[in-house]
Protein backbone atom coordinates (compact mmCIF):
# COMPACT_ATOMS: atom_id res chain seq x y z
CA UNK A 1 0.00 0.00 0.00
CA UNK A 2 1.05 3.60 -0.54
CA UNK A 3 2.60 5.62 2.18
CA UNK A 4 2.05 9.25 3.06
CA UNK A 5 5.21 11.15 4.12
CA UNK A 6 6.59 7.85 5.29
CA UNK A 7 3.48 7.05 7.35
CA UNK A 8 1.33 4.04 6.46
CA UNK A 9 -2.28 5.17 5.84
CA UNK A 10 -3.65 2.78 8.46
CA UNK A 11 -1.67 4.60 11.14
CA UNK A 12 -2.55 8.04 9.77
CA UNK A 13 -6.29 7.41 9.61
CA UNK A 14 -6.23 5.54 12.90
CA UNK A 15 -4.73 8.54 14.65
CA UNK A 16 -7.06 10.94 12.85
CA UNK A 17 -10.01 8.89 14.09
CA UNK A 18 -8.65 8.96 17.64
CA UNK A 19 -8.25 12.71 17.25
CA UNK A 20 -11.80 13.01 16.02
CA UNK A 21 -13.04 11.03 19.03
CA UNK A 22 -11.13 13.25 21.43
CA UNK A 23 -12.38 16.25 19.48
CA UNK A 24 -15.96 15.05 19.97
CA UNK A 25 -15.50 15.23 23.70
CA UNK A 26 -13.60 18.54 23.58
CA UNK A 27 -16.44 20.03 21.54
CA UNK A 28 -19.26 18.79 23.79
CA UNK A 29 -17.48 19.92 26.95
CA UNK A 30 -16.24 23.28 25.70
CA UNK A 31 -19.70 23.98 24.27
CA UNK A 32 -21.21 23.54 27.74
CA UNK A 33 -18.51 25.74 29.27
CA UNK A 34 -19.14 28.42 26.63
CA UNK A 35 -22.91 28.40 27.16
CA UNK A 36 -22.47 28.64 30.93
CA UNK A 37 -19.84 31.35 30.74
CA UNK A 38 -21.91 33.42 28.35
CA UNK A 39 -24.94 33.49 30.59
CA UNK A 40 -23.52 33.21 34.12
CA UNK A 41 -20.05 34.69 33.72
CA UNK A 42 -18.86 31.72 35.71
CA UNK A 43 -15.92 29.58 34.66
CA UNK A 44 -17.35 26.21 35.58
CA UNK A 45 -14.44 24.27 37.01
CA UNK A 46 -16.84 21.51 38.07
CA UNK A 47 -17.44 20.68 34.39
CA UNK A 48 -14.95 17.80 34.27
CA UNK A 49 -16.26 16.36 37.52
CA UNK A 50 -19.83 16.50 36.21
CA UNK A 51 -18.70 14.69 33.06
CA UNK A 52 -17.32 12.01 35.34
CA UNK A 53 -20.59 11.98 37.33
CA UNK A 54 -22.45 11.46 34.04
CA UNK A 55 -20.32 8.41 33.27
CA UNK A 56 -20.70 7.05 36.81
CA UNK A 57 -24.46 7.62 36.73
CA UNK A 58 -24.69 5.44 33.63
CA UNK A 59 -22.48 2.79 35.24
CA UNK A 60 -24.46 2.83 38.50
CA UNK A 61 -27.75 2.64 36.63
CA UNK A 62 -26.53 -0.46 34.82
CA UNK A 63 -24.98 -2.01 37.93
CA UNK A 64 -27.82 -1.51 40.40
CA UNK A 65 -30.95 -0.82 38.38
CA UNK A 66 -30.28 -2.79 35.22
CA UNK A 67 -30.80 0.33 33.11
CA UNK A 68 -28.87 -0.07 29.87
CA UNK A 69 -26.88 2.29 27.69
CA UNK A 70 -29.65 3.80 25.58
CA UNK A 71 -31.96 4.88 28.44
CA UNK A 72 -28.89 6.03 30.36
CA UNK A 73 -27.91 8.26 27.45
CA UNK A 74 -31.06 10.27 28.20
CA UNK A 75 -31.42 9.69 31.95
CA UNK A 76 -27.85 10.36 33.10
CA UNK A 77 -27.71 13.85 31.51
CA UNK A 78 -31.08 14.59 33.13
CA UNK A 79 -29.71 13.52 36.52
CA UNK A 80 -26.58 15.64 36.04
CA UNK A 81 -28.67 18.58 34.79
CA UNK A 82 -30.96 18.36 37.80
CA UNK A 83 -27.94 18.22 40.08
CA UNK A 84 -26.61 21.32 38.31
CA UNK A 85 -29.92 23.13 38.81
CA UNK A 86 -29.76 22.41 42.54
CA UNK A 87 -26.13 23.62 42.68
CA UNK A 88 -27.04 26.83 40.87
CA UNK A 89 -30.10 27.50 43.01
CA UNK A 90 -28.48 26.83 46.34
CA UNK A 91 -24.89 27.99 45.84
CA UNK A 92 -23.81 29.60 42.56
CA UNK A 93 -26.68 32.09 42.46
CA UNK A 94 -25.39 33.68 45.66
CA UNK A 95 -22.10 34.63 44.02
CA UNK A 96 -23.19 36.61 40.93
CA UNK A 97 -22.74 39.96 42.66
CA UNK A 98 -19.13 39.13 43.54
CA UNK A 99 -16.01 38.83 41.40
CA UNK A 100 -15.83 35.96 38.84
CA UNK A 101 -13.12 34.44 40.95
CA UNK A 102 -15.62 33.29 43.58
CA UNK A 103 -17.62 31.25 41.08
CA UNK A 104 -14.40 29.68 39.89
CA UNK A 105 -13.32 28.82 43.44
CA UNK A 106 -16.72 27.38 44.33
CA UNK A 107 -16.89 25.15 41.27
CA UNK A 108 -13.26 24.10 41.72
CA UNK A 109 -14.06 23.08 45.30
CA UNK A 110 -17.14 21.18 44.14
CA UNK A 111 -15.04 19.33 41.58
CA UNK A 112 -12.57 18.24 44.27
CA UNK A 113 -15.39 17.09 46.56
CA UNK A 114 -17.15 15.11 43.82
CA UNK A 115 -13.94 13.45 42.70
CA UNK A 116 -12.96 12.72 46.29
CA UNK A 117 -16.33 11.11 47.02
CA UNK A 118 -16.24 8.85 43.99
CA UNK A 119 -12.64 7.89 44.70
CA UNK A 120 -13.60 7.04 48.26
CA UNK A 121 -16.49 4.84 47.14
CA UNK A 122 -15.13 3.25 43.99
CA UNK A 123 -11.35 3.60 44.18
CA UNK A 124 -9.06 5.11 41.60
CA UNK A 125 -9.11 2.16 39.21
CA UNK A 126 -11.60 2.30 36.36
CA UNK A 127 -14.86 0.42 36.06
CA UNK A 128 -15.49 -1.16 32.66
CA UNK A 129 -18.67 -0.30 30.75
CA UNK A 130 -19.72 -2.58 27.90
CA UNK A 131 -20.38 -1.23 24.44
CA UNK A 132 -24.11 -1.68 23.70
CA UNK A 133 -24.91 -4.69 21.48
CA UNK A 134 -26.16 -2.62 18.56
CA UNK A 135 -22.78 -0.90 18.27
CA UNK A 136 -20.46 -3.91 18.76
CA UNK A 137 -17.97 -4.68 16.04
CA UNK A 138 -16.92 -2.42 13.26
CA UNK A 139 -16.74 -1.99 9.52
CA UNK A 140 -13.99 -1.88 6.98
CA UNK A 141 -14.02 1.42 5.13
CA UNK A 142 -11.34 0.28 2.67
CA UNK A 143 -8.69 2.68 3.90
CA UNK A 144 -9.24 1.88 7.57
CA UNK A 145 -11.22 -0.14 10.07
CA UNK A 146 -13.91 1.87 11.91
CA UNK A 147 -15.24 0.49 15.19
CA UNK A 148 -18.99 1.14 15.16
CA UNK A 149 -19.07 2.66 18.63
CA UNK A 150 -16.41 5.23 17.76
CA UNK A 151 -18.28 6.26 14.66
CA UNK A 152 -21.40 6.65 16.78
CA UNK A 153 -19.60 8.91 19.26
CA UNK A 154 -18.52 11.30 16.52
CA UNK A 155 -21.99 11.40 14.97
CA UNK A 156 -23.78 11.81 18.32
CA UNK A 157 -21.44 14.61 19.37
CA UNK A 158 -21.84 16.42 16.04
CA UNK A 159 -25.64 16.16 16.16
CA UNK A 160 -25.88 17.42 19.74
CA UNK A 161 -23.37 20.23 19.14
CA UNK A 162 -25.02 21.46 15.95
CA UNK A 163 -28.49 21.07 17.50
CA UNK A 164 -27.38 23.24 20.41
CA UNK A 165 -25.90 25.79 18.02
CA UNK A 166 -29.15 25.90 16.05
CA UNK A 167 -31.27 26.28 19.18
CA UNK A 168 -29.17 29.19 20.41
CA UNK A 169 -28.52 31.04 17.15
CA UNK A 170 -31.70 30.41 15.19
CA UNK A 171 -34.69 30.05 17.52
CA UNK A 172 -36.77 32.41 19.61
CA UNK A 173 -35.69 30.76 22.85
CA UNK A 174 -32.09 31.21 21.73
CA UNK A 175 -32.78 34.89 21.04
CA UNK A 176 -33.84 35.28 24.68
CA UNK A 177 -30.63 33.57 25.72
CA UNK A 178 -28.43 35.76 23.52
CA UNK A 179 -30.24 38.91 24.64
CA UNK A 180 -30.00 37.97 28.31
CA UNK A 181 -26.29 37.24 27.87
CA UNK A 182 -25.88 40.79 26.57
CA UNK A 183 -28.19 42.76 28.86
CA UNK A 184 -29.99 40.69 31.50
CA UNK A 185 -31.55 43.69 33.24
CA UNK A 186 -33.31 44.91 30.10
CA UNK A 187 -34.54 41.42 29.21
CA UNK A 188 -36.01 41.26 32.69
CA UNK A 189 -37.68 44.64 32.08
CA UNK A 190 -39.46 43.07 29.10
CA UNK A 191 -41.08 40.53 31.40
CA UNK A 192 -38.76 37.53 31.10
CA UNK A 193 -37.77 35.61 34.20
CA UNK A 194 -34.00 35.89 33.83
CA UNK A 195 -32.97 34.17 37.07
CA UNK A 196 -34.90 31.09 35.96
CA UNK A 197 -33.22 31.25 32.53
CA UNK A 198 -29.83 31.36 34.24
CA UNK A 199 -30.68 28.30 36.34
CA UNK A 200 -31.87 26.34 33.31
CA UNK A 201 -28.83 27.38 31.28
CA UNK A 202 -26.51 26.01 33.93
CA UNK A 203 -28.57 22.84 34.10
CA UNK A 204 -28.39 22.46 30.31
CA UNK A 205 -24.65 23.19 30.17
CA UNK A 206 -23.78 20.55 32.73
CA UNK A 207 -26.26 18.10 31.18
CA UNK A 208 -24.08 18.33 28.05
CA UNK A 209 -21.13 17.32 30.23
CA UNK A 210 -23.19 14.43 31.62
CA UNK A 211 -24.06 13.34 28.07
CA UNK A 212 -20.39 13.40 27.11
CA UNK A 213 -19.68 11.29 30.19
CA UNK A 214 -22.11 8.56 29.09
CA UNK A 215 -20.68 8.60 25.56
CA UNK A 216 -17.20 8.23 27.05
CA UNK A 217 -18.04 5.37 29.42
CA UNK A 218 -17.53 2.50 26.94
CA UNK A 219 -14.39 4.08 25.42
CA UNK A 220 -12.44 5.16 28.44
CA UNK A 221 -13.03 3.37 31.69
CA UNK A 222 -15.39 4.95 34.19
CA UNK A 223 -12.90 6.50 36.54
CA UNK A 224 -13.23 9.21 39.24
CA UNK A 225 -10.39 11.18 37.66
CA UNK A 226 -11.49 10.91 34.02
CA UNK A 227 -12.83 14.47 34.15
CA UNK A 228 -9.83 16.20 35.63
CA UNK A 229 -7.56 14.56 33.04
CA UNK A 230 -9.68 15.98 30.25
CA UNK A 231 -10.80 19.33 31.57
CA UNK A 232 -7.43 21.07 31.39
CA UNK A 233 -7.27 20.48 27.64
CA UNK A 234 -10.91 21.56 27.34
CA UNK A 235 -10.13 24.86 29.06
CA UNK A 236 -7.34 25.40 26.56
CA UNK A 237 -9.85 24.70 23.78
CA UNK A 238 -12.23 27.29 25.19
CA UNK A 239 -9.46 29.86 25.42
CA UNK A 240 -8.43 29.19 21.82
CA UNK A 241 -12.00 29.32 20.49
CA UNK A 242 -12.95 32.37 22.50
CA UNK A 243 -15.05 32.46 25.66
CA UNK A 244 -18.76 32.57 25.00
CA UNK A 245 -18.68 31.75 21.27
CA UNK A 246 -20.92 28.77 20.51
CA UNK A 247 -19.70 27.87 17.03
CA UNK A 248 -16.16 28.72 18.13
CA UNK A 249 -16.31 26.10 20.87
CA UNK A 250 -17.58 23.40 18.50
CA UNK A 251 -15.17 24.05 15.62
CA UNK A 252 -12.17 24.49 17.90
CA UNK A 253 -13.02 21.32 19.81
CA UNK A 254 -13.03 19.12 16.72
CA UNK A 255 -10.10 20.92 15.08
CA UNK A 256 -7.82 20.55 18.08
CA UNK A 257 -8.72 16.90 18.47
CA UNK A 258 -7.65 16.35 14.85
CA UNK A 259 -4.51 18.41 15.35
CA UNK A 260 -3.57 16.26 18.33
CA UNK A 261 -4.11 13.14 16.23
CA UNK A 262 -1.91 14.46 13.44
CA UNK A 263 0.81 15.40 15.88
CA UNK A 264 0.75 11.83 17.22
CA UNK A 265 1.52 10.58 13.73
CA UNK A 266 4.27 12.97 12.76
CA UNK A 267 5.85 13.99 16.07
CA UNK A 268 4.39 11.90 18.91
CA UNK A 269 6.56 13.56 21.55
CA UNK A 270 4.66 16.85 21.09
CA UNK A 271 1.15 15.41 21.02
CA UNK A 272 0.42 16.17 24.67
CA UNK A 273 1.47 19.79 24.49
CA UNK A 274 0.40 20.84 21.00
CA UNK A 275 -2.93 22.21 22.27
CA UNK A 276 -1.14 24.39 24.79
CA UNK A 277 1.33 25.65 22.21
CA UNK A 278 -1.60 26.68 20.01
CA UNK A 279 -3.21 28.32 23.04
CA UNK A 280 -0.09 30.37 23.76
CA UNK A 281 0.18 31.49 20.12
CA UNK A 282 -3.52 32.43 19.93
CA UNK A 283 -3.29 34.36 23.18
CA UNK A 284 -0.36 36.34 21.78
CA UNK A 285 -2.00 37.13 18.45
CA UNK A 286 -5.72 37.30 19.26
CA UNK A 287 -6.30 37.39 23.04
CA UNK A 288 -10.10 37.18 22.70
CA UNK A 289 -9.76 33.81 20.97
CA UNK A 290 -10.22 32.81 17.33
CA UNK A 291 -14.00 33.27 17.36
CA UNK A 292 -14.28 35.56 20.39
CA UNK A 293 -15.46 39.14 20.38
CA UNK A 294 -13.62 41.74 22.40
CA UNK A 295 -15.77 42.79 25.33
Amino acid at each position, binding site marked *: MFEFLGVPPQALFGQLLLGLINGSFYALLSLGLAVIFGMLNVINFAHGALYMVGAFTAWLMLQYLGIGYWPALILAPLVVGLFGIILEKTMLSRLYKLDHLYGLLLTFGLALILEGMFRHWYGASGQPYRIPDALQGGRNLGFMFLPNYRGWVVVASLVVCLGTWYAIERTRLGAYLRAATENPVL*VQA*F*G*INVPRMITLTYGFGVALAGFAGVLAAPIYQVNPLMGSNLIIVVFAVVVIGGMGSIMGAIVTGFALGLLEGLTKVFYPEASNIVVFVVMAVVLLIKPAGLFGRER
Partner: protein
Amino acid sequence: MPDDVMLEVADLHAFYGESHVLHGVSLTVPKGEVVTLLGRNGAGKTTTLRSIMGIVPRRDGSIRMEGTETVGLAPHRIPRLGIGFVPEERGIFSSLDVEENLMLPPVVRPGGMAVEDIFRLFPNLKERRRSQGTKLSGGEQQMLAIARILRTGATLLLLDEPTEGLAPVIVQQIGRVIRELKAKGFTILLVEQNFRFAATLADRHYVMEDGRIVDMIPNEQLEANMERLHEYLGV
Protein backbone atom coordinates in the same frame (compact mmCIF):
# COMPACT_ATOMS: atom_id res chain seq x y z
CA MET B 1 -58.17 55.62 42.92
CA PRO B 2 -60.24 56.97 40.04
CA ASP B 3 -60.56 54.78 36.97
CA ASP B 4 -58.86 57.26 34.69
CA VAL B 5 -55.47 56.97 36.41
CA MET B 6 -52.95 54.68 34.70
CA LEU B 7 -49.97 55.05 37.00
CA GLU B 8 -49.78 56.48 40.47
CA VAL B 9 -46.41 56.89 42.17
CA ALA B 10 -46.46 57.92 45.83
CA ASP B 11 -43.56 58.71 48.16
CA LEU B 12 -41.08 56.70 46.09
CA HIS B 13 -37.57 56.31 47.47
CA ALA B 14 -34.78 54.58 45.58
CA PHE B 15 -31.27 53.58 46.56
CA TYR B 16 -28.10 52.53 44.76
CA GLY B 17 -26.07 50.85 47.46
CA GLU B 18 -25.45 53.47 50.12
CA SER B 19 -26.66 56.40 48.08
CA HIS B 20 -30.24 57.53 48.43
CA VAL B 21 -31.24 58.73 44.94
CA LEU B 22 -34.99 59.40 45.04
CA HIS B 23 -36.47 61.20 48.05
CA GLY B 24 -40.22 60.70 48.03
CA VAL B 25 -41.26 61.11 44.39
CA SER B 26 -45.01 61.36 43.81
CA LEU B 27 -46.66 61.70 40.42
CA THR B 28 -49.80 60.69 38.58
CA VAL B 29 -50.11 59.64 34.95
CA PRO B 30 -53.74 59.76 33.74
CA LYS B 31 -54.88 57.33 31.06
CA GLY B 32 -54.29 58.51 27.52
CA GLU B 33 -52.03 61.41 28.48
CA VAL B 34 -48.43 62.17 27.62
CA VAL B 35 -46.64 63.21 30.80
CA THR B 36 -43.04 64.40 30.85
CA LEU B 37 -40.41 64.36 33.53
CA LEU B 38 -38.14 67.36 33.08
CA GLY B 39 -35.00 68.18 35.00
CA ARG B 40 -31.28 68.57 34.80
CA ASN B 41 -28.82 65.73 34.50
CA GLY B 42 -28.74 63.68 37.68
CA ALA B 43 -32.09 64.94 38.95
CA GLY B 44 -33.40 61.38 39.16
CA LYS B 45 -35.53 61.13 36.00
CA THR B 46 -33.97 57.93 34.71
CA THR B 47 -33.93 56.43 38.20
CA THR B 48 -37.66 57.15 38.45
CA LEU B 49 -38.34 55.16 35.29
CA ARG B 50 -36.03 52.36 36.38
CA SER B 51 -37.76 52.26 39.76
CA ILE B 52 -41.12 51.92 38.06
CA MET B 53 -39.70 48.95 36.12
CA GLY B 54 -38.29 47.49 39.34
CA ILE B 55 -34.70 47.40 38.11
CA VAL B 56 -33.04 49.48 40.84
CA PRO B 57 -31.32 47.68 43.73
CA ARG B 58 -33.81 48.96 46.31
CA ARG B 59 -37.01 50.99 46.28
CA ASP B 60 -39.63 51.93 48.89
CA GLY B 61 -42.99 53.63 48.66
CA SER B 62 -45.85 52.86 46.35
CA ILE B 63 -46.14 52.44 42.58
CA ARG B 64 -49.59 51.45 41.38
CA MET B 65 -50.26 50.40 37.82
CA GLU B 66 -54.02 50.52 37.20
CA GLY B 67 -54.48 49.99 40.92
CA THR B 68 -52.01 47.07 41.26
CA GLU B 69 -49.16 47.70 43.70
CA THR B 70 -45.81 46.83 42.03
CA VAL B 71 -43.33 47.52 44.82
CA GLY B 72 -42.46 44.04 46.03
CA LEU B 73 -43.23 42.34 42.72
CA ALA B 74 -40.40 40.46 40.99
CA PRO B 75 -38.98 42.65 38.18
CA HIS B 76 -40.17 40.34 35.39
CA ARG B 77 -43.78 40.57 36.63
CA ILE B 78 -43.99 44.36 36.33
CA PRO B 79 -43.93 44.64 32.51
CA ARG B 80 -46.62 41.98 32.46
CA LEU B 81 -49.02 44.53 33.96
CA GLY B 82 -48.83 46.33 30.63
CA ILE B 83 -45.77 48.56 30.89
CA GLY B 84 -43.31 48.91 27.99
CA PHE B 85 -39.85 50.36 28.59
CA VAL B 86 -37.46 52.17 26.24
CA PRO B 87 -34.21 52.67 28.13
CA GLU B 88 -31.97 55.69 27.79
CA GLU B 89 -29.22 53.74 26.04
CA ARG B 90 -31.91 52.21 23.75
CA GLY B 91 -30.82 48.69 24.58
CA ILE B 92 -30.62 47.27 21.06
CA PHE B 93 -29.04 43.82 21.20
CA SER B 94 -26.00 43.40 18.96
CA SER B 95 -26.25 39.60 18.88
CA LEU B 96 -29.79 39.83 17.47
CA ASP B 97 -30.86 41.06 14.05
CA VAL B 98 -33.49 43.77 13.66
CA GLU B 99 -36.39 41.35 13.40
CA GLU B 100 -35.21 39.35 16.41
CA ASN B 101 -34.89 42.58 18.39
CA LEU B 102 -38.41 43.51 17.33
CA MET B 103 -39.85 40.13 18.28
CA LEU B 104 -37.93 39.78 21.56
CA PRO B 105 -40.26 41.30 24.18
CA PRO B 106 -42.98 38.78 24.95
CA VAL B 107 -46.62 39.74 24.41
CA VAL B 108 -47.93 40.65 27.85
CA ARG B 109 -51.59 41.16 27.01
CA PRO B 110 -53.80 41.08 23.93
CA GLY B 111 -54.32 44.16 21.80
CA GLY B 112 -50.73 44.92 20.80
CA MET B 113 -49.99 46.38 17.39
CA ALA B 114 -49.59 43.96 14.49
CA VAL B 115 -46.11 43.70 13.00
CA GLU B 116 -47.36 45.05 9.63
CA ASP B 117 -48.74 48.14 11.38
CA ILE B 118 -45.44 48.64 13.17
CA PHE B 119 -43.57 48.42 9.86
CA ARG B 120 -46.03 50.96 8.39
CA LEU B 121 -45.11 53.30 11.22
CA PHE B 122 -41.36 52.59 10.82
CA PRO B 123 -40.74 51.68 7.15
CA ASN B 124 -36.94 51.81 7.57
CA LEU B 125 -37.03 48.88 9.95
CA LYS B 126 -38.75 46.64 7.43
CA GLU B 127 -36.02 47.21 4.86
CA ARG B 128 -33.33 46.41 7.39
CA ARG B 129 -34.99 43.38 8.98
CA ARG B 130 -31.92 41.17 8.54
CA SER B 131 -29.29 43.69 9.69
CA GLN B 132 -27.54 43.29 12.99
CA GLY B 133 -29.43 45.43 15.51
CA THR B 134 -26.55 47.70 16.36
CA LYS B 135 -25.66 48.33 12.69
CA LEU B 136 -28.65 50.68 12.48
CA SER B 137 -28.19 54.45 12.75
CA GLY B 138 -28.92 56.06 16.10
CA GLY B 139 -32.33 57.25 14.91
CA GLU B 140 -33.25 53.83 13.54
CA GLN B 141 -32.15 52.19 16.79
CA GLN B 142 -34.42 54.55 18.68
CA MET B 143 -37.30 53.68 16.35
CA LEU B 144 -36.60 49.98 16.89
CA ALA B 145 -36.51 50.45 20.68
CA ILE B 146 -39.96 52.06 20.52
CA ALA B 147 -41.30 49.66 17.87
CA ARG B 148 -40.55 46.52 19.84
CA ILE B 149 -42.70 47.48 22.83
CA LEU B 150 -45.73 48.32 20.67
CA ARG B 151 -46.19 44.63 19.83
CA THR B 152 -46.51 43.55 23.43
CA GLY B 153 -49.91 44.97 24.26
CA ALA B 154 -48.41 47.34 26.82
CA THR B 155 -50.65 50.37 27.34
CA LEU B 156 -48.20 52.51 29.32
CA LEU B 157 -44.94 53.38 27.59
CA LEU B 158 -41.93 54.70 29.50
CA LEU B 159 -39.59 56.52 27.12
CA ASP B 160 -36.22 57.66 28.46
CA GLU B 161 -34.86 60.58 26.39
CA PRO B 162 -35.88 59.28 22.98
CA THR B 163 -34.39 62.32 21.24
CA GLU B 164 -30.98 62.30 22.90
CA GLY B 165 -28.15 62.81 20.44
CA LEU B 166 -30.34 62.67 17.33
CA ALA B 167 -30.47 65.06 14.37
CA PRO B 168 -33.37 67.58 14.27
CA VAL B 169 -35.08 65.77 11.36
CA ILE B 170 -35.11 62.53 13.34
CA VAL B 171 -36.33 64.33 16.46
CA GLN B 172 -39.29 65.63 14.42
CA GLN B 173 -39.96 62.12 13.16
CA ILE B 174 -39.98 60.73 16.69
CA GLY B 175 -42.31 63.55 17.73
CA ARG B 176 -44.71 62.48 14.98
CA VAL B 177 -44.55 58.87 16.14
CA ILE B 178 -45.29 59.82 19.74
CA ARG B 179 -48.26 61.93 18.67
CA GLU B 180 -49.56 59.05 16.60
CA LEU B 181 -49.19 56.68 19.54
CA LYS B 182 -51.08 59.08 21.76
CA ALA B 183 -53.86 59.22 19.16
CA LYS B 184 -53.97 55.41 19.26
CA GLY B 185 -54.67 55.60 22.98
CA PHE B 186 -51.25 54.82 24.47
CA THR B 187 -50.34 56.48 27.75
CA ILE B 188 -46.78 57.79 27.76
CA LEU B 189 -44.38 58.86 30.49
CA LEU B 190 -41.55 60.66 28.77
CA VAL B 191 -38.21 61.72 30.22
CA GLU B 192 -36.77 64.70 28.37
CA GLN B 193 -34.01 67.25 28.60
CA ASN B 194 -35.38 69.07 25.58
CA PHE B 195 -38.48 70.78 26.93
CA ARG B 196 -39.20 72.54 23.65
CA PHE B 197 -39.71 69.10 22.18
CA ALA B 198 -41.72 68.00 25.22
CA ALA B 199 -43.96 71.08 25.02
CA THR B 200 -45.21 70.05 21.59
CA LEU B 201 -46.44 66.67 22.88
CA ALA B 202 -47.21 66.62 26.55
CA ASP B 203 -50.35 67.24 28.58
CA ARG B 204 -48.43 67.98 31.75
CA HIS B 205 -44.86 68.32 32.95
CA TYR B 206 -43.33 67.25 36.22
CA VAL B 207 -40.09 68.97 37.14
CA MET B 208 -37.48 67.04 39.14
CA GLU B 209 -34.58 68.33 41.18
CA ASP B 210 -32.26 66.34 43.47
CA GLY B 211 -34.46 63.27 43.51
CA ARG B 212 -37.69 65.15 44.23
CA ILE B 213 -40.63 66.43 42.21
CA VAL B 214 -40.51 70.20 42.68
CA ASP B 215 -43.30 71.32 40.36
CA MET B 216 -46.12 70.21 38.10
CA ILE B 217 -47.06 72.44 35.17
CA PRO B 218 -50.01 71.65 32.89
CA ASN B 219 -48.95 72.20 29.28
CA GLU B 220 -51.48 75.01 28.72
CA GLN B 221 -49.82 76.99 31.52
CA LEU B 222 -46.33 76.43 30.15
CA GLU B 223 -46.05 79.88 28.56
CA ALA B 224 -46.99 81.61 31.79
CA ASN B 225 -44.42 79.58 33.72
CA MET B 226 -41.57 79.81 31.25
CA GLU B 227 -39.37 81.85 33.54
CA ARG B 228 -39.76 79.43 36.43
CA LEU B 229 -38.99 76.51 34.13
CA HIS B 230 -35.86 78.18 32.76
CA GLU B 231 -34.66 78.54 36.31
CA TYR B 232 -35.29 74.87 37.12
CA LEU B 233 -33.55 73.63 34.04
CA GLY B 234 -30.77 76.20 34.06
CA VAL B 235 -31.19 77.02 30.37
